[in-house]
């Protein structure tokens, strides 16, 4: 773990987003990731959660998963700590655990008038409200930018719809892996010999949407810093994915070619993913130059291959990749995947092992950079969390707090932030707005 945080404190340096308060109405995946990017860099993020509504895939698949359900999760491996959901499974869900550091959690039922009143009071003391709920959810709650700007004229409200707030898909529900299909990504990866039904879910659109949601938020705050004005920001997550693949759309326009999956083949360099000595452990080689090929031949102890006409120049290697694959995989199969990566990189051959989770936790580069950071969590114990996405010399930084327990910061939000009286607080508890568990009728 780095000591950056201590330096930051002693130098009195602030984080770039310190002093900005974000009301977080996000669910599932991309929205929460956007908010993580804000909380990591100093914004105070307050998740508004409801004891009466369990948003699928946000704090779990179910409130109290059955024994049978937990067993079936073993196939998918996304289980609870020690395969035990515990008394409060919603605090132990890995898909929440992995993004929620540095955030606060309060509970309120926005479907009731006094809940909306709480939101109104919070908006008065906040800078940003961000959401990525399904179509119609905000309307149902009676929340709109037009209303909120009356309460707080310089509010930045960020909405992250799947396809856009207008257009023929505006009312379509979709998870991130579905956006990948619409944005054209699913058509581009996988094995050319199998059809699309062979392809499992990927979540690049969620990941990119999360980053872009934060980018749009910070851009609007930058504007506000100069003009004093807030605004409504819309980010279509699917449209955000399209430019990542733009080369392919241009390829169609330029040549009429509609690209399909190519497994690990690349246009240009010879490239493959090869087996190693260890079960299901692999290594990727990308041979872009003649020099890299020459060095690989030396490493393989087959210098004569350099003069082999099948592989003499890059076009020849590209054309004869199946033959090249046979030679290379016959060699890689004798080595440990990480050892071989170290050896080839030491010899200036571009090689990367397909690193597993334990490999990453033991990785010397991530260790040297202090990427993983251990934080204590009341319901889970000590967890080594994947850390910050970039390093900053001007704002030395590290993770601060573990993912919040459901409702952990009710006292702070209601008493300190809103100045709610003791009797009102008690009443809100009795009415079920404030609590640290879900209503028993939810299943």
């Amino acid at each position, binding site marked *: 773990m780095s000591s950056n945080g201590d330096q930051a404190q002693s130098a009195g340096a602030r984080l*770039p*987003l310190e002093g900005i308060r974000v009301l977080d109405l996000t669910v599932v995946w991309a929205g929460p990731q956007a908010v993580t990017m804000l909380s990591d860099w100093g914004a105070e993020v307050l998740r508004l959660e409801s004891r009466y509504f369990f948003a699928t895939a946000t704090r779990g698949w179910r409130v109290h998963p*059955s024994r049978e359900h937990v067993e*079936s999760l073993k*196939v*998918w*491996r*996304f289980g*609870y700590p020690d395969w035990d959901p515990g008394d409060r499974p919603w605090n132990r869900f*890995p898909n929440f655990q992995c*993004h929620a550091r540095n955030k606060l959690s309060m509970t309120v039922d926005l479907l009731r008038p006094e809940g909306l009143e709480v939101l109104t009071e919070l908006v008065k003391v906040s800078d940003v409200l961000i959401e990525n709920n399904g179509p119609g959810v905000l309307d149902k709650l009676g929340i709109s930018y037009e209303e909120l700007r009356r309460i707080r004229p310089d509010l930045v409200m960020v909405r992250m719809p799947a396809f*856009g707030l*207008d257009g023929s*898909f505006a009312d379509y529900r979709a998870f991130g892996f*579905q956006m990948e*299909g619409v944005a054209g990504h699913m*058509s581009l*990866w*996988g*094995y050319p010999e199998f059809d*699309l039904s*062979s*392809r499992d879910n990927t979540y*690049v659109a969620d*990941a990119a949407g999360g*980053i872009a949601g934060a*980018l749009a938020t910070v*851009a*609007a705050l*930058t504007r506000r*810093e100069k003009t004093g004005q807030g605004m409504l920001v*819309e*980010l279509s997550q699917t*449209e955000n994915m399209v430019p990542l693949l733009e*080369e392919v*759309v241009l390829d169609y326009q330029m040549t009429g070619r*509609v*690209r399909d999956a190519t*497994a*690990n083949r690349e*246009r240009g360099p010879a490239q493959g*993913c090869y*087996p190693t000595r260890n079960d299901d452990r692999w290594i*990727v080689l990308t041979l872009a130059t003649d020099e890299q090929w020459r060095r690989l031949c030396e490493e393989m102890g087959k210098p004569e291959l350099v003069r082999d006409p099948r592989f003499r120049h890059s076009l020849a290697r590209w054309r004869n990749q199946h033959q090249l694959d046979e030679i290379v995989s016959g060699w890689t199969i004798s080595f440990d995947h990480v050892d071989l*990566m170290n050896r080839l*990189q030491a010899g200036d051959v571009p090689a*990367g092992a397909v690193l597993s*989770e334990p490999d990453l936790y033991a990785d010397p*580069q991530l260790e*040297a*950079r202090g990427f993983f950071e251990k934080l204590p969590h009341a319901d889970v114990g000590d*967890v080594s*969390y*994947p850390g*910050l*996405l*970039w390093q*900053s010399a*001007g*704002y030395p930084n590290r993770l601060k707090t573990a993912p919040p327990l459901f409702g952990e910061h009710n006292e702070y939000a209601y008493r300190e932030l809103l100045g709610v009286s003791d009797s009102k607080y008690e009443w809100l508890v009795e009415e079920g707005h404030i609590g640290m568990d879900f209503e028993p009728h939810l299943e």
Partner: protein
Amino acid sequence: MPIAEREASGSGPLAGVRVLDFSQRIAGPYCGKLLAQLGADVVKAEPPGRGDPSRTYGPFPNDIPHAEKSAQFLHLNLSKRGVTLDLSTVLGQRIALNLLEESHIVIESFKPGAMERLGLGPEMLRTRFPRLIVTSISNFGQGGPYRDWLSSEAITYAMGGPMQTTGLPEYEPVKLGATAIQHSAGLVAALATLTSWLGSLRSAHGDHLDVSLFETQAGTIDRRTPQLVAHQHTGASFTRRPAGSMVAAGARPCKDGYVIMAVPDPSFERFKDLVGGQRALDDPRFASTDDKMKPGRADEFDIDYLLPWLLERTMDEACSQAQALRVACTPVYSAKDLLTAPLFRERALWQAVTHPRAGTFEHPRAAFRFGDNPPLELTPSPTLGQHNRDIYTGELGMADVELARLRRLGVI
């Protein structure tokens, strides 16, 4: 033009912000493009002669290579202005410092340590320009044992990303489509840059940002971070699994293509009703949501209900009928579909941009909309050295003879 005047003339949240973009290939240029789409004035500086290597990447119109017609370059440098500058010469370095005098942000993607060797090291720059944001983008970061390692799109994904879980169990892991990983890193770099830029407006100090592509993948929510945390929780290690191991999970064929459905527990009854009616609702094999994940049930449901329903419908029909019942169902598009789909036409995603050498092509506008402002109009990527005169003469005030001399010396 002085900064204040530029500010008045531009629009977009970053109007008036000058970015000097030394970066090459994909991640850095995409970072610069995003800042340009937010309204920043981005000046791309390329080495004279060859320019950015992405000018050789292609694809090219009719597959004929040409430095001004590479698809990858044409899209990554939209809305930027371009100059040439040889940073390996003392004169070039002096001009770079003059350009930096007028800049708020500089992006670079050289090998770690190269900026120092060019006399433009980030620490020196920050001392000289205390409010400057320097964004360094590299494969593994500016320090650490892998600092000088080589990488590629697939290698970055293999090491940092969830490649172990991409593909089928009996086959080798596969990379993702096109250059999605490097573009994603460009997004992270743009966010890092903008975050520190906002910080600088409030604190009046600059920054040096160190973005490692490896870390953008080790920290991606595309399966990697949940898998890492789940591994901490249970010791489980993830690998590739067969697609469609849960009822309705994965892409399925229909009459004219494929759709993807998502059936979380709350919509399971509606979904059964949609594709199988009362027969499916009454079928004891699929009575509870736990049945969705039991071995073999996905195939049984496919054969008895889902595929017969889908194969009688087009993508559009299946999606609109399912969505009317609040069942998430969406089409799978190819590159060609992207250009023709009404969805994107209605939203005016595509803009035809005419490049003086390459011709006219449709490019997607920025995905973010600020208030009622339409997205900024894209302008074509610069030809090599296109804005040398505008910037060196018009802005730095060099005489024509000086420009001619620099050209003769190969500095520009």
